[in-house]
């Protein structure tokens, strides 16, 4: 699997989110459900797009959704998953 830096992951997460909302800027720490126009359906579509883009699986059975659903939360979680996938 391609190795990506946290900076690249954050940048890609921002891009995938920006394709789905129309806020000009979004604070990295703000909940996507509270701070953006993303609704629950939009969140699911975003997670599907992230899984495809990063070739990983986000296990919503175990993950804490409330801490996941921000740019910071997604970046952090994806960084861990990418590290694990690459044997880190």
């Amino acid at each position: 699997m391609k190795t990506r830096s946290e900076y690249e992951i954050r940048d890609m997460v921002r891009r995938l989110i920006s394709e789905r909302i129309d806020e000009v800027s979004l604070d990295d720490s703000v909940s996507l459900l509270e701070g953006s126009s993303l609704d629950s359906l939009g969140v699911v579509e975003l997670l599907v797009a992230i899984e495809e883009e990063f070739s990983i699986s986000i296990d919503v059975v175990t993950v804490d959704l409330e801490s996941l659903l921000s740019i910071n939360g997604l970046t952090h979680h994806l960084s861990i998953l990418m590290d694990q996938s690459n044997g880190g």
Partner: protein
Amino acid sequence: MTRGALIDVLARHRPQNKAVEMGEQLTSYEELLDLTRAIREQITRSAIGPGPVVVADDPGAGACATIAAAQALGRAYVPLSANHPATRIQQILAAVEPALIVQSDRTATRMAEALAGRYPLLTISSQLDNLSWTRSPEPEAGYASPVGADIAYVMFTSGTTGRPKGVPVRTESLMAYLGVAMKRFGVRPGDRASHFFELTFDLSVHDIFVTLLGGGTLVVVPAGQRMLPARFLREKEISHWFSVPSAAESLHRLGVLRPGVFPQLQQTLFCGEPLRWPVTEAWQVAAPSSRIVNLYGPTEATIAISHYVVPRRRSRSNDVYGIVPIGQVFEGQHSRLCSTPEVGGQPNRGELWLSGSQVISAYLNAGNNRDAFAAGPDDVAWYRTGDIVERDGHGLLHFVGRMDHQLKISGYRVEPAEIENAIHRAFPACRSVVVRCDRGKRRGLVAAIVCVDGDRPAASAVREACAISLPPYMIPAHVVELALWPVNANGKIDRGAVRRQLEEHTGPEVAADTGAKS
């Protein structure tokens, strides 16, 4: 079962059994009964006039106790949501003229503007250990409420006129439903049942009454977990699940419905939207010990009026359009299909009409407007659902579609006209058409707009305008400007073509939904 049954039954359950679980807050049946009696005492000791009790609270023990107290006093309850805009809440208050409002101090700040006014306001502390009058009742301040003494609750749904529409459900109707639901889908002590639905969604009535009458534990699903409730289902060891199919669709889409992932589930009920077979089969694999029941029913028919117990295999007879049948109406209720040229003129297909003890006879404050009701050939009053349904050779009903433009968003009924009116009020130079998109990048509720002059509103401005009067589920996720409306042969806007254009087209005539003025 009689009115006041809930409080009587609460007293018969084991006092130390858990009645309601909301996060870390656990409320036993004894504590719930004490709170119910305390609320009832406050109301009976005060100078409260006739009329319904408004429940201005999030789901939880406080709301359950308020509802049980209202029921014991022979008053209807009317739920409000702290997530809804103040103007909408005030429209509802004006429509029902409540005797009092009961809120919790968890929702008090969020609802302060909406609840400002003249109605007595009783506040439950977040620890459920104190009741206080935030606004005391005034002697002889009672207002005439249009909600009669025979009404159990009033739910407000989206209305084509631009105002929420009140659906008053009689106690007789609720009792008829509970009689069937307790027998067919009941819970028992030791069962852990989900409380998925907001109080303003009538399926919450099932959550509360069926669980508490049965002596089970009602486990509140946190709002942030409703869209993807997998972790909740496992960690809370839910045995009885009830939700809209959207929740299962989301889990299926993310590949969560793996074999045996929900081993503890014994019963799953779905209602509020068409239930797709692929999702149902995936749920069967994920919850192998659970039976699955597809329920159907408009708010006007009291929670649900038909059901279909999903067999282990789909077949040609139960899979007509890739959708699980809505089955057969409950015993004592009646259905007929009214066939018209609009629905294709096929013999077994038509608009579904409903009648029986579960069906309302009029909307609140509707006056002589009875467009949704019709007299059948037998002079019985029927409710016209607007749903197009087929009846197969086994007598099973299959949902086919809608006769009008009504949409469903996470089970909520949405009349596009209500949203289009809100946009037009804010931006008179713009015409809008609101559709639901299920493909492409713009999914969910999408507003297409065409403006007659150069002053185009930003997408964010359109959504802000909607948020003034509409609940969150009615605010478009996307706002897209079109150059021209696609029209049909009669010159009318072709909504299907608008939807297809939004789902498929990325060309230049569809402006990017960036909100930029162009």
